[in-house]
């Protein structure tokens, strides 16, 4: 039903989460959709009912971005960061820091776009600070949680559900 087959989550190292997804479009368009605020705010929304009232992107090395979302019940969530590297249309690197106190550390996100016969493979790698492993219990849990590959976990859950039912 969904185009989920090509969406992969992996953990290249114990400080990273890498997500890979193929898009049926050339690279310069994907790069634009990832870096132009008027485009980003159309898709980077999250759960149904959420909007992105603030989406500011200053796409240059050292430039800042600011994203803020609002949920159906008025809950707000925000993140900000600075661009470290920009090599349009194949790669850019930005820091990320969430407003929420439970997610206090800064991570580094690398976007790599590879085009092949009109399709673009996006790999989004999040590198967490080593300090976070120590400080951010929740975040470290998040990494580890995702680290168990979904497939493995799903198998596990399926069998547990069957056994426990």
């Amino acid at each position, binding site marked *: 039903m*969904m*185009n*989920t087959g090509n*969406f992969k*989550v992996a953990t290249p190292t114990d400080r990273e989460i890498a*997500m890979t*997804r193929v*898009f*049926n*479009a*050339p690279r310069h*368009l*994907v790069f*634009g*959709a990832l870096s*132009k*605020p*008027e*485009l980003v705010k*159309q*898709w*980077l*929304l*999250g*759960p*149904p009912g959420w909007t992105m009232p603030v989406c*500011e*992107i*200053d796409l240059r090395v050292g430039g800042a971005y*600011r994203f803020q979302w609002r949920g159906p019940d008025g809950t707000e969530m925000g993140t900000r960061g600075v661009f470290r590297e920009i090599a349009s249309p194949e790669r850019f690197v930005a820091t990320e820091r969430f407003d929420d106190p439970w997610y206090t550390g800064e991570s580094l996100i690398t976007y790599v776009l590879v085009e092949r016969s009109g399709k673009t493979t996006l790999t989004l790698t999040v590198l967490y600070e080593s300090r976070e492993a120590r400080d951010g*219990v*929740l975040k*470290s*849990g*998040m990494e*580890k*949680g*995702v680290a*168990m590959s*979904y497939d493995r*976990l*799903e198998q*596990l*859950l399926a*069998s*547990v*559900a069957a*056994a*426990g*039912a």
Partner: protein
Amino acid sequence: MMETFRALAEPNRFQIVELLRGGPRPVGHLVRRLRLRQPQVSKHLRVLSDAGLVDVRVDAQRRIYALRPAPLQELEEWLEKYRGLWEANFQRLDSLLEEMKADERKSAQPKPKQKKSPRTKR
């Protein structure tokens, strides 16, 4: 849920949970399969038990451990949300890219016009 993560983050404990997928097992079985010393295994089992991931019952002299599904189901819901959130984003991005491709084709037909996006000011 944090406790579930913390408990499962340790590889031996994750392996214990996987071993228990097949059904309840006595401690001795886990000790043999993990190739750890019994006190180490017991320590891991205590963490899993504190996190509500396993239950123990005593059968004669043997302590038999079994999985409890509730925390894992909670974890699954959380992971589904995490994945679902990104998948929903990516599907919106799919549709946006289709529009962008169509726009590009249109503007390419008469004469390739340099299409600049409006400058964004903070």
